[in-house]
């Protein structure tokens, strides 16, 4: 079996990618690691990297500039995960293990590799046993909102069933890779709740040594014996650091209550991961700019503009490059034009701000006639509160209001 590993990130996370790739290489020395960077070729200035870099263009993502505008950095990486796996299969590998960002490999992924011998897909659930304690219902419901299976470790074998599944997943993520739990979405992850239903033979790997992470640390007893990290007495294969901030003494921004005191010996693994990040150049690379954060005039792309673009779907074809700002036909100019057709009115209530207005009943209550006599009031709200509240650059305020 020709096996490969794959991960996807962006330039300022290159230290994380190096840690994942190098730790994987220790235990799987002859298995190549492919790392896709959604904002271009890998940074790093010619260093010998423990991975083979890939660009979004190489993955065969259709019209990558649309996806790069539609999604912010993190969501873009999530949305391109199935395309990455398909691409690595197309390079001639029989099986691919996906390792999401913030992963440290501590032992061979034997159970995953074995699973791929017999199954087209190996998925890892967040939880492998019912929870106990008074918050058991709340915690299990939280998993139902984020996804039964964790994309952190996902094995796929090259076969027709897997290709069909990855094709479907990529297709859904072109439009639906958002954080909207009440709509059934949690970026790329909830979609794979369909795995056991859609893929004959897909298997659920109930292995406590894989995907040890903040959501299951309370149930899995982690001990550290010299260099060995054990869970319930067995060597950990994959430890995940989802939401870990190396500057903070906590397991994850999603679990701020998991402090070093609470974590006990498990905290040693977080410290080890932080040191590994430092060794791999975290301090020097963490500030690398994201290449698709701003329009070509330097104005940061607000989340609102990305969401509007996603909602427009095929209609965005007429704008050409969405990051371009020159010319009256640009998306940038379109966002700034008045939402009302007809005679010009002052101050302008732009399409961008009107889109915000239509989603906010509080604003509708106060500025009922927003395209008429409430124009000035609403534009004042945008200037005094709106920009800060929803992170919109002041370049989007109406002329004369900034």
């Amino acid at each position, binding site marked *: 079996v020709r096996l490969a590993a794959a991960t996807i990130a962006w330039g300022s996370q290159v230290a994380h990618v190096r840690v994942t790739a190098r730790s994987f290489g220790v235990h799987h020395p002859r298995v190549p690691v492919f790392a896709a960077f959604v904002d271009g070729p890998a940074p790093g200035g010619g260093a010998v990297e423990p991975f083979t870099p890939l660009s979004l263009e190489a993955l065969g993502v259709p019209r990558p500039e649309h996806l790069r505008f539609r999604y912010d950095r993190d969501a873009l990486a999530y949305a391109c995960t199935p395309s990455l796996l398909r691409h690595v299969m197309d390079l001639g590998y029989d099986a691919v293990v996906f390792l999401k960002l913030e992963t440290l490999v501590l032992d061979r992924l034997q159970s995953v590799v074995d699973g791929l011998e017999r199954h087209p897909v190996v998925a890892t659930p967040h939880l492998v046993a019912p929870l106990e304690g008074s918050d058991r219902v709340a915690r*299990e419901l939280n998993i*139902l909102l984020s996804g039964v299976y964790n994309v952190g470790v996902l094995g796929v074998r090259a076969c027709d069933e897997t290709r069909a599944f990855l094709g479907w997943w990529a297709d859904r993520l072109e439009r639906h890779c958002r954080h909207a739990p009440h709509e059934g979405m949690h970026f790329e992850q909830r979609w794979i*709740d369909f795995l056991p239903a859609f893929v004959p033979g897909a298997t*659920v790997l109930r292995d406590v040594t894989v995907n040890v992470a903040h959501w299951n640390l309370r149930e899995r007893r982690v001990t550290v014996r010299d260099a060995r990290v054990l869970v319930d007495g067995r060597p950990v294969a994959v430890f995940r650091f989802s939401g870990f901030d190396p500057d903070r003494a906590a397991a994850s921004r999603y679990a701020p209550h998991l402090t070093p005191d609470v974590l006990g010996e498990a905290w040693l693994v977080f410290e080890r991961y932080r040191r590994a990040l430092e060794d791999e150049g975290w301090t020097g690379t963490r500030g690398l700019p994201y290449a698709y954060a701003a329009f070509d005039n330097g104005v940061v792309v607000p989340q609102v503009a990305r969401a509007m673009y996603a909602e427009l779907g095929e209609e965005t074809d007429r704008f050409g490059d969405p990051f371009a700002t020159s010319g009256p036909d640009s998306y940038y100019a379109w966002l700034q034009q008045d939402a009302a057709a007809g005679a010009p009115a002052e101050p302008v209530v732009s399409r961008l701000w009107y889109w915000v207005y239509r989603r906010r009943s509080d604003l509708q209550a106060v500025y009922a006639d927003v395209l008429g006599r409430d124009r000035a009031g609403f534009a004042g709200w945008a200037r005094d509160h709106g920009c800060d509240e929803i992170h919109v650059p002041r370049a989007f305020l109406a002329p004369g209001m900034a």
Partner: protein
Amino acid sequence: VTAPRIAAVTVATASYLPRVHALAASLGRHEPSIALTATIVDGHGGGRAGGARTQPLEEAAPTLAARLRAAYEPPALAMAAKASAMRHALDAGADRVVLLDADLLVLADLGPLVHAPGDVVVVPHLLGPARGPGAEAAELRLLQAGVMNAGVVAASNTPPGREFVAWWEDRLVQACRHDLAAGVHYDQRWLDLAPGLFEGVTVLRDPGIDVAYWNLHERSRPWRLFHFSGFDPACPERATKYVPGLSVADLGEAAASLFRGYAALLAAIEA
């Protein structure tokens, strides 16, 4: 070697007694060795509905009935009591219990379900991606409501099977409501967790089991177990109350005639 003892259970309100009757008759025809016990949650005492034995909630769940009644009203009460009805059958000595919603009809032997390997059997709504222009929306609705369908569930009288039933019963006592923002869709979404939480969970991908308006496009014959979910015999031309505008005729000739036959059967039972 004796054949495994299979028990079938359903939980319903008294208004569904004609459906229970129809289900019991169809089960008796195609699986004569499997008896159906119906737990009737709103007041109907012990007795029979066609071939089914009926029992009150207090008999299925003596220790939990009061809590369930305090927490839920019908029809949520019937959904919340499903796991208790399963446990009751296992406690009575069944080797495997099969939970069937009362609005199912058995059309052929249930071999693929009854003899499915594993300790727990769950059944997905869809066996592959939805199709057509509304496909993404249909899939997102299932991600909110549950990938697995709570209309058909089986558990064996083994440690993992019993563990699953005890877990589902506990969760249903606490959270069997409709609150999509919280991740709850009555009894159903809980089942999506089962393949991760328990050993020996089979996700049954059989084209004849749990055929319904939401999956007719992907199902082949024979249809073994048909689900008339949301069908109201008082409006016999509407396929389901859950999809406004979907008529029985939209489902194709074979399904349409099945719906008409089912409506006639319910009418005959009520008469």
